[in-house]
Each structure stands twice: as C-alpha cells, then as structure tokens.
C-alpha cells in the first residue's frame, strides 16, 4: 500500500536535518546542567554566530527583536548568513543592507509593516545581492519550527495548497491516508542559531516572556544554538516562584546577556515603545546605499557597544520617553506617516 506524493515544492530545503542526525548533534553539543551562561553580546555573537549560519530571530515584526545582537553581528562583519524570514523586518533589512545576510527564506521580508517597504533590502533582492531561496507562509515557518522542536521530519498543514508560495517552498503535498485529501507537509527547520530578547532570564537561560510568545516557544527548542539577551538577568529563585512562566528552558540556551533596552528601536511589550523616529531615520537614509553605509558608520561601527549606541539615539531622555509612550503617558511620534 502507498500514498501519493502529489507535489514537491522547488524551494531550497534549508535547515532540515535527518532527525537522527540532529539528535546526535543535540547529544554531543547541548549541556543539561545549570551552568552560568552570562556573557557579553560581543562574546556571544563571536562564539555562537558563524559565517554561513542559518539564522533566526525571536519576536515578530518590530516587536521584541534582539537588536543589540543584530548590531553586533553587523559590527563583527559576519558573512553569508542565511536568514529565516519568519517575518523578518527591521532585523532582516539591516542585516541584508549591511551585507551579512545574502540568502533569505521568505515568509515575510523586505517590508516594515505599516511603515512601508524596505528600500535597502528590496534593492538587494532586486539586484540579486541577496538571494531569495524559497517562499513560505507564517504558519508554514511556525510549523517547520514545531517539527524541529518535536524531532520529527515534518508537520502536516492545510495552508499554502494550490499557491505559488507552495511551489517555491520546500514543502510536499501528499494524500492523507485517512481522509484521502491532499495535505501539505512542511519539513522541519533547525536554525543553526537563534537569538531572542526577553524581559527576564536567569543566568542559566530560563527565560520568561511577557505577553504573546509569537513562535519563540517552538523556535528556541528547534535551534541548535540559542543566544538570549534580556532586559534583566534575575536570580534563579525568581524562576522558582512561577516555573509555569518559563517560555525558554535553560537546556536549549547557550548564552545569556543582560542588555537593558536591547530591543531598541523595536518595541518591548509592557516596557517601551518603538523608536519610530529612529526607524524613520533608517527608512529615510537607506533609500541610497550611501545613506545606509553612513547609518552603519554612525550607529554601529562608530560606537563601541550598545550603550554608546543608546546614547547616540537619544540617551536617557529618549528611553524615558519610549517608556512613557508604552504606558500611554506620552503621545507617539510617527514621522514616517505622511498623513496619507
């Protein structure tokens, strides 16, 4: 007896491993004991992000993105990264513009949500400088991470069927042996490295997330190496109080970095708002390669670290303002909105 393979997408199968091969990797590389993983973003990126890696970032759109690590990746001039465009927005745009990412697997990229399209990364995609290696949907990526977290080769889904998105994905369509209907199989995706920004985390890597998890629960468990940046590194005993709040467990984590405002200029729910002025500045200057270059000189290469960057984007006054906006105590500024 057999079931039919009805269709096979032509997208590049990035990040898939035979489940046994990945189990072996986990066995040999992931530690199981509570060990102090605190380090600097500089060290963490130097050690755990490697040229050519398949890389993913936690959060969603402009929310809870580990931007201090994004800047550090640019500063260390990592190259040939393949990005999981699982809704990759500001992170993807900067990394492509800086020449760190030259391949991307796209659920959503090249855009800044309501703010419009991304001049820099679109330019790169259209010139071929950044290659799109496949298309997928958000659910498709979500469930590729679920498959990897579960250590299974694929997860069935009922989306993408009939579309060109599927044609350009690495998915296959088979006949469901129970219903006889076509069903899409999304293959597991194990990023080489994934980076997350969280409100709090202990030194071992047990991390809590306030508000929505997006796909971080599955993504952190799917990834071979995991870097956490946290607003605050708390004592392990804080985790004991509510262990049901641990969204990322220590045994998947390789590095823990305390980085207050580490998501700037993206948004940290309950803590601080997007820095729309800064995002608008980027969207404006990145309309030319020279402008993007100047931006990186000013905000990345021209500063020694993230704290110096925070000073440069407006320091304490700006950060206080962003906290106030998040608490509805100050009005938001949206310079990119031209009253359309």
């Amino acid at each position, binding site marked *: 007896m057999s079931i039919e393979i009805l269709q096979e997408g032509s997208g590049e199968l990035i990040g898939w491993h035979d489940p046994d091969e990945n189990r072996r990797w986990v066995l040999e590389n992931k530690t199981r004991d509570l060990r102090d993983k605190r380090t600097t973003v500089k060290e963490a990126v130097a050690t755990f992000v490697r040229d050519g890696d398949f890389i993913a970032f936690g959060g969603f759109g*402009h929310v809870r993105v580990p931007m201090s690590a994004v800047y550090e990746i640019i500063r260390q001039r990592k190259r040939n990264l393949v990005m999981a465009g699982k809704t990759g927005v500001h992170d993807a745009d900067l990394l492509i513009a800086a020449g760190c990412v030259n391949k991307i697997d796209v659920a959503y990229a090249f855009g800044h949500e*309501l703010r419009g399209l991304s001049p820099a990364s679109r330019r790169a995609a259209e010139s071929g400088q950044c290659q799109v290696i496949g298309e997928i949907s958000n659910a498709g990526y979500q469930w590729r991470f679920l498959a990897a977290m579960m250590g299974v080769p694929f997860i069935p889904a*009922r989306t993408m069927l*009939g579309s060109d998105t599927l044609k350009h994905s690495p998915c296959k369509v088979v006949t469901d042996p129970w219903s006889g209907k076509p069903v899409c199989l999304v293959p597991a995706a194990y990023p080489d490295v994934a980076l997350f920004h969280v409100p709090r985390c202990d030194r071992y890597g047990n991390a809590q997330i306030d508000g929505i998890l*997006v796909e971080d629960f599955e993504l952190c468990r799917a990834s071979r190496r995991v870097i956490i940046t946290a607003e605050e590194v708390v004592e392990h005993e804080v985790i004991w109080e509510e262990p049901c709040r641990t969204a990322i467990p220590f045994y998947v984590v390789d590095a823990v970095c305390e980085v207050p405002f580490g998501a700037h200029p993206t948004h940290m729910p309950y803590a601080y708002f997007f820095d729309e002025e800064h995002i608008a500045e980027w969207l404006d200057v990145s309309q030319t390669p020279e402008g993007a270059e100047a931006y990186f000189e000013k905000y990345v290469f021209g500063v020694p670290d993230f704290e110096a960057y925070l000073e440069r984007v407006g320091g304490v006054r700006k950060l206080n303002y962003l906290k106030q906006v998040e608490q509805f105590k100050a*009005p938001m500024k949206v310079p990119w909105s031209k009253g359309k």
Partner: protein
Amino acid sequence: MAEQATTFTPTELMACVAARLLADKRSVLVGTGLPVIAAVLAQRTHAPHLLIIFEAGGIGPLVPVIPISVGQSPTFYHASAASSMHDVLSACQAGYVDYGFLGAAMIDTYGNINTTVIGDWARPTVRLPGSGGANDVGSLCPRTIIILRQDKRRFVEKVDFITTPGYLDGPGARERAGLPEDTGPYRVITQLGVYGFAEPTKRLKLVALHPGVTVDDVQANSSFEVLVAEDVATTEPPTAMERRLLREIDPAGIVIGK
C-alpha cells in the same frame, strides 16, 4: 437614517465598508492597517461582541488605538489571552476563525492575490514582502475580505504569482488542491466599489459602487472585464459617528490620514 458626514476620504469609506461586513458574535483575524481599524470600528458600532484575533497571539483584546505591529501590546491589551502564533493559526486551521482580512498588491479575476513579486520570481522587477500570514488567512478562513486600491496594474486577469489562493482557476479548484472546504475570498473592497464572486464561476463580480462611482470607472481601472451584478447597490457613505470613531481608533492618522 444615520447622520452622514459631508466629506470623507476613500480610505475612510473603505474602512467603514469593511467594518459593516463583519457580523456580530463572530471572529476575525486581522493584521495592522485598515483591517484592524475596520474590526475595531465594527466592535464600536454594530458588532460589540466581535472577537478580534491577531496572528502573533493576541486574542480578544480591547484594542485601545491602532497597533503599528501585529505583535504590539495593544494587540493583547485587556485581552482574553496573549498566546502564540501556533495557537492562533491552529485555531484558524481548526475552524474557529470566521473572517480574515487581507491587503493585496495585485488581485486577479478569481481573487488570487500576489504580494510576492512583480515579474519573474527568480529575477523580479519588484520584490514585495511575500506571504506573511496572508496565505494562511486566505487558505483557512471561511470568509476572506480583501482590501486594496484598484487600478489597471492591480486588477489583472492573472497574477504573476499566487501568493495567497483565491479560487485558483475556478470552481472546485480549492477543494481539489486540498484547501479546507467552504473557504475563500468573500468580498473585495476598493476605492471604487465592493466585489463578490459569481456563482458558479467564482469570478470577481461588482456588487456595490461607492457614491459617485460608475461602472465605467470600475472597468477603466481594471485590466479585465469585471462582471457586474444585476442589482448593483450603492455604498452608504461613512456617517459622522463612524468618522469620529475612526479618529479615535487612529488618532495619529497613521492609516486613516490626517
């Protein structure tokens, strides 16, 4: 009859038309922009018990002001749950979500949507963002509502790339592909009018014209011949109350304009 606003913008009109399509006590998956504005407007007018859901995990919030991102805190402000994408898209796949909202760069006669590329996929003339959650919404929701500005380049016979499935190449095609039954595009809203899909052909069909718009205007802004219903309605313009509410929802005029 409700007091009518004397002037309104096409964006305001599209938001109001979209809101009116949402029945009370049902659920809607929204993104940022006009969809969330329409859903909140519906909640504040005829559909107070509408369940608003965001793909990133926000379930049932009382959205205070328009979120800029679908993961932003207003998407789970005073919410029943701040959950995950896996949870929300599973609920959508399992049938808990009635309406979906989508934008589009281009749409074709069968309601297929392109938001991926203009031109050849491998060497695009214009690279667009891709599916995001659009394919999932368009694949899984019983009633998908599409909002876009219409012109000849955007209303095309056949899209360059089907990012999100409409009725594919016609009747039965969705089911043959394996998509859930009884799903697909429900209405298309543009600055000129409202479209449904003809039975049994599943081709785009004009069902309402906005005030002051003619069928000729519609055809002039489409690169294919649009079917026209026998009894084309005329859209009610936004009421003054609707316009006031739109300002409340989008006080900075990010989407609605200033």
